[in-house]
């Protein structure tokens, strides 16, 4: 069942199998509003998926994702897959993977944490539980299991 609801891209990145409803957050993470002027960004919301029921898809021309952005996407949507497109072909496809450790992706939800006081440090978290996902701040030990409000891209 090969169907492309949106125009194929020559070079760029496809983020597929995004948890339904999270495409706009993914756009925010990748910084879709300040990309190269020549880049087209296409978004498909609420697409039928055999595997997931419903999913979202984001396709961005002429862009590669930094590891930090991939990590942020993994936090929100562990099912996402990332495909690199070159010359209209998929040259690499991989699922996002959750690292054991996050740096600079989330802000600590504890307002009293030293990482929120203007010190020259990036917030750092360790994964303490995978299913369901829970992180812990390396500075103040606070648990985080609700990531959306604390993404640094917000």
């Amino acid at each position, binding site marked *: 069942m090969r169907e492309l609801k949106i125009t194929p891209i020559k070079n760029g990145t496809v983020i597929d199998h995004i948890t339904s409803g999270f495409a706009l957050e993914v756009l925010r993470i990748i910084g879709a509003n300040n990309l190269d002027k020549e880049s087209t960004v296409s978004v498909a919301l609420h697409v039928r998926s055999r595997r997931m029921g419903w999913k979202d898809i984001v396709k961005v021309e002429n862009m590669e994702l930094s590891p930090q952005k991939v990590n942020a996407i993994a936090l929100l949507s562990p099912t996402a897959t990332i495909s690199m497109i070159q010359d209209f072909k998929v040259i690499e496809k991989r699922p996002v993977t959750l690292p054991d450790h996050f740096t600079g992706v989330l802000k600590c939800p*504890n307002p*009293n*944490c*030293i*990482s929120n*006081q*203007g*010190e*020259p*440090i*990036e917030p750092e978290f*360790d994964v*303490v539980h995978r299913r369901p996902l829970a992180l*812990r*701040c*390396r*500075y*103040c*030990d*606070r*648990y985080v299991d609700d990531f959306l409000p604390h993404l640094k891209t917000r």
Partner: protein
Amino acid sequence: MGVVITRRGHSGAHRFAKPYTSRACRPTGMGLKGRDLVSIKDLSKQEIESIISAARRHIPVAEGKRTSTLLDGKLLALAFFEPSTRTRLSFETAMLRLGGRTITIADPAVSSVAKGETLSDTVRMLSGYADAIVVRHPNEGASRLASQVSEKPVINAGDGAGQHPTQTLLDLATMEEHFHTLSGLKVVLMGDLRYGRTVHSLAYALALFGAHLVLTSPPALRIPEHIRSDLAEIGADIREEADLRRAVQDADVLYVTRIQKERFGDLAEYARVSSGYRLDPSILEEVKPSFIVMHPLPRVAEIPSEVDSSSHAAYFRQAFLAVPVRMALLSLILSGQPGPGGG
């Protein structure tokens, strides 16, 4: 984007960059010299035992019956970014009793902190001056940050609602002195088990030593779920008991904590919760003869002064032991020696 601090490399000693994995990957048996103490979890059970037994050797010096020059020539920086007379004085006393010296940031309002200097910069400067730094700070995680920035060992003397590992050490030393063991003790933890920073690390350490924990607190101040799950992970034996009289039955220790006014938005709620939280002295009529009452002090009204003269009151001994325990820690970190020679 600011300058990102890179973790300092350090020859020999592990720097505890990772709070929850450090113990597993740390080589054992290399002593405490040059190490940081940020969280009680930075220490193994054997290391805690070695500090407690070293503290015993320091008691005569702490009492002024003997003198020591163990830390002669060493300089300790006391970086107190929030007021804490008690903790600061006990560290200062410990250092002076060992023949060392101290420099102090006692009042952040008049120091460079007031001029907006970051903690990172202040600590980096102090680490150039002193041989070790004691940090007390209102923000959680401040000592972890300080330990990353400092070239010299950092000892956490309380960071916000976070860790206060030296308090835990002296609490354990008090119980160990009285019962000659920690394993199998039945310890009742009473009061603010939600925000009380001393209680979380104490519960963790007691569980490590195989104590049985009984928790008794107002419903609003029950222990947070994540702390409970941490404790469960190390196999802690915990139960909750709302009725204090039942809780202390055949218990060995009652550890009372303060209910802090500043944790409550609503003062009426504070008054309601705290007024019910007072140790009724008649409870002591039914306890074991060896039973002790502990409190990190200062107390407000949780323990009426009539308990002070009871043989069960251990909180003044506990306050005194702050000095030899901190002496032991400073000796081990600064010189690698457990205590004054000759036993």
